[in-house]
């Protein structure tokens, strides 16, 4: 329906002045309502309507520059005395005090305050209202807490866009790995970190050699910069004298610092008598003078030093397991372990996957090396004795961590499953006997509680994206520091469930270790019996040639390869099945890609297996 109103005007009348006049309203169009359309409407009751009265606001975000804060102290001198009285003069102060005491106001106030105070003091004396009630009940609650850990500090130093207030990073442009961490022995508020680049021959020219001591209260600037002549690979505080640190350098020298004397080393060992390879392990010895330390490196030597005289080592040992002392046969040492309660014995983890236990006090060279434990496919990156059971030690290398007992030399008593990434470092917890920590090359920190669960870590935390290279637990057992490949050191605080001793834990752990050790011993005994029997049989039947199918090395290789792939395929299928059950099909593609990567990773392990087979067959 169109409503048109036409307004006409003669052309000659355009432009005339308007003269408006009033006239009554005139209906132009009248459209009556159409009742038939009323049915199309639905009555709505109630009707929601809203009203808002608010002032207009706008949101704006600003990120300020990180402010560097410095703590300073203020010396407060006794003040408040009136001008004419010199606070140093005893007579004047006494006189002033006596005057005040006679003041009436003073007396009244004291009376009033005195009664008030008396009341509270009496309260205190009557009942101790803050005592621990229900002390027993609290213990039961602790077990239910799920294990967790939270980051309390990240040490790195570039200007960061993190909103975390405390960040500590390596202040240099070329990132270096944090290869070793050492906590200050007394206060645990300071952390010494050794930075170096462990890539072979990739030292850039502008890479600095410095290593730092960080104070946890001041994460922006290192407390002390240590300037060695070559980057430090390992660094340790002297447990007896907390100002002294010893460091092992990348070029094989040893240097020691006194923090009171500044950043340059007090003394450096001479190059000719030092190691020929980076010093991977440097530990202080327990001695009366507190100045002895020893070091190990991949050149196969273990050297003992007295830091007062670093011009030559006091003792040397060549890690040759054929016990002939030949440097050519020596195994390269990657980690060193020393337990202060057993001062003459120490252990070395080697690049070849063998752990050597040695006795320092032995007279002949042959006796120096007491026993060897081989069980890792790759270098043993970490070696630690259990602080509660010195006979049990943990080795970390290749893709798993193994727990050994000193008595069983052929195989570990317990081990973790094989992971997808290399394990780089590990250590025991200082408070709980069955808990240990490991770091992986995918940036994850695992906390294992072997009493609770042996298949998986109790807690697995992704700390950062780059590989973690070193790990160190603070002496109280609650804070752990991990260093990464790019030089970031992260400090994590572990939930109290993982760092407080549970009831019966010691007895349970003892029982567990004994059980496993016994099991291994029985297995070892059986193996020995079987071998003896074989030998007896072969000796008795000299004329009869053994009907063993003699396979050529090639056939052995082929057979192993086939078996290996079969095992992998079975495992992949099992995993695919497990995951298709849980995840919708959209995720299967991602899992498939991941499995392929895992398969590839495992295939690259094949050349190593081949080498081993060749060695065995040869």
């Amino acid at each position, binding site marked *: 329906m169109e409503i048109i109103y036409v307004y006409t005007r003669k052309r000659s009348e355009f432009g005339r002045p308007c003269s408006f006049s009033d006239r009554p309203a005139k209906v132009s169009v009248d459209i009556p309502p159409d009742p038939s359309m009323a049915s199309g409407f639905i009555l709505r009751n109630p009707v929601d309507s809203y009203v808002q009265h608010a002032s207009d606001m706008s949101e704006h975000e600003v990120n300020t520059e990180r402010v560097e804060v410095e703590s300073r102290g203020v010396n*407060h001198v006794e003040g408040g005395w009136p001008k004419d009285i010199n606070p140093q003069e005893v007579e004047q102060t006494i006189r002033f005090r006596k005057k005040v005491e006679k003041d009436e106001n003073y007396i009244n*106030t004291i009376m*009033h305050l005195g009664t*008030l105070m008396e009341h*509270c003091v009496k309260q205190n004396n009557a009942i*101790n209202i803050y005592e621990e009630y229900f002390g027993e009940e609290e213990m039961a609650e602790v077990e239910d807490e799920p294990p967790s850990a939270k980051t309390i500090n990240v040490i790195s130093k570039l200007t960061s866009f993190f909103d975390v207030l405390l960040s500590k990073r390596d202040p240099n442009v070329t990132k270096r790995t944090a290869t070793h961490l050492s906590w200050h022995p007394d206060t645990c508020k300071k952390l010494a970190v050794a930075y170096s680049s462990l890539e072979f021959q990739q030292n850039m020219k502008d890479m600095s050699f410095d290593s730092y001591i960080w104070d946890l209260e001041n994460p922006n600037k290192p407390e002390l910069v240590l300037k060695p002549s070559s980057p430090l690979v390992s660094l340790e505080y002297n447990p007896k004298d907390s100002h002294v640190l010893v460091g092992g350098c990348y070029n094989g020298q040893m240097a020691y610092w006194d923090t009171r004397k500044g950043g340059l080393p007090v003394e450096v060992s001479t190059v000719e008598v030092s190691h020929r390879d980076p010093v991977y392990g440097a530990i202080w010895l327990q001695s009366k003078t507190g100045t002895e330390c020893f070091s190990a490196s991949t050149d196969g030597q273990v050297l003992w030093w007295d830091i007062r005289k670093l011009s030559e080592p006091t003792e040397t040992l060549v890690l040759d397991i054929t016990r002939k002392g030949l440097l050519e046969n020596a195994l390269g040492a990657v980690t060193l372990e020393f337990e202060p309660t057993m001062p003459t014995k120490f252990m070395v983890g080697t690049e070849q996957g063998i752990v050597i236990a040695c006795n320092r006090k032995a007279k002949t060279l042959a006796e120096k090396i007491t026993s060897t434990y081989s069980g890792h496919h790759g270098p043993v990156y970490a070696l630690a004795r259990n602080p509660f059971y010195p006979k049990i030690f943990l080795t970390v290398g290749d893709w798993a961590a193994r727990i050994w007992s000193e008595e069983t030399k052929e195989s570990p008593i317990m081990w973790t499953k094989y992971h997808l990434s290399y394990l780089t470092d590990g250590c025991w917890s200082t408070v709980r006997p069955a808990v240990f920590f490991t770091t992986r090359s995918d940036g994850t920190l695992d906390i294992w509680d072997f009493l609770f669960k042996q298949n998986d870590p109790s807690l697995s935390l992704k700390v950062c994206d780059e590989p973690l290279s070193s790990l160190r637990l603070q002496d109280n057992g609650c804070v752990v520091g991990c260093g990464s490949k790019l030089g970031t050191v992260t400090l994590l605080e572990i939930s109290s469930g993982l760092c407080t001793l549970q009831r019966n834990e010691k007895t349970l752990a003892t029982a567990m270790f004994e059980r496993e050790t016994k099991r291994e011993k029985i297995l070892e005994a059986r193996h020995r019996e079987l071998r003896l029997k074989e030998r007896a049989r072969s000796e008795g039947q000299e004329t009869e040639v053994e009907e063993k199918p003699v396979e050529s090395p090639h056939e052995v290789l082929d057979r192993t390869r086939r078996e290996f792939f079969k095992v992998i395929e079975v495992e992949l299928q099992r995993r695919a099945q497990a995951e298709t059950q849980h995840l919708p099909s959209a995720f299967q593609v991602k899992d498939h890609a991941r499995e392929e990567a895992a398969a590839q990773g495992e295939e690259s392990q094949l050349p190593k297996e081949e080498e081993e087979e060749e060695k065995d067959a040869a």
Partner: protein
Amino acid sequence: GIPIRTTLDNSTTVQYAGLLHHLTMKARSTVRDIDPQNDLTFLRIRSKKHEIMVAPDKEYLLIVIQNPCE
């Protein structure tokens, strides 16, 4: 604040007096910020080693340090 009468040695007393004076001021202003009609009558700080009790007044401050019962 100036110690008028004390049973401890001077340096400790001076330290306690100075620090607790500021703390009492702060506590009193906190109490009055929440309720202007209110005022601080007594302040008790219990630490691991002892209990410090402070009774403030307009001009003077009475401080008592006590060993807890346990």
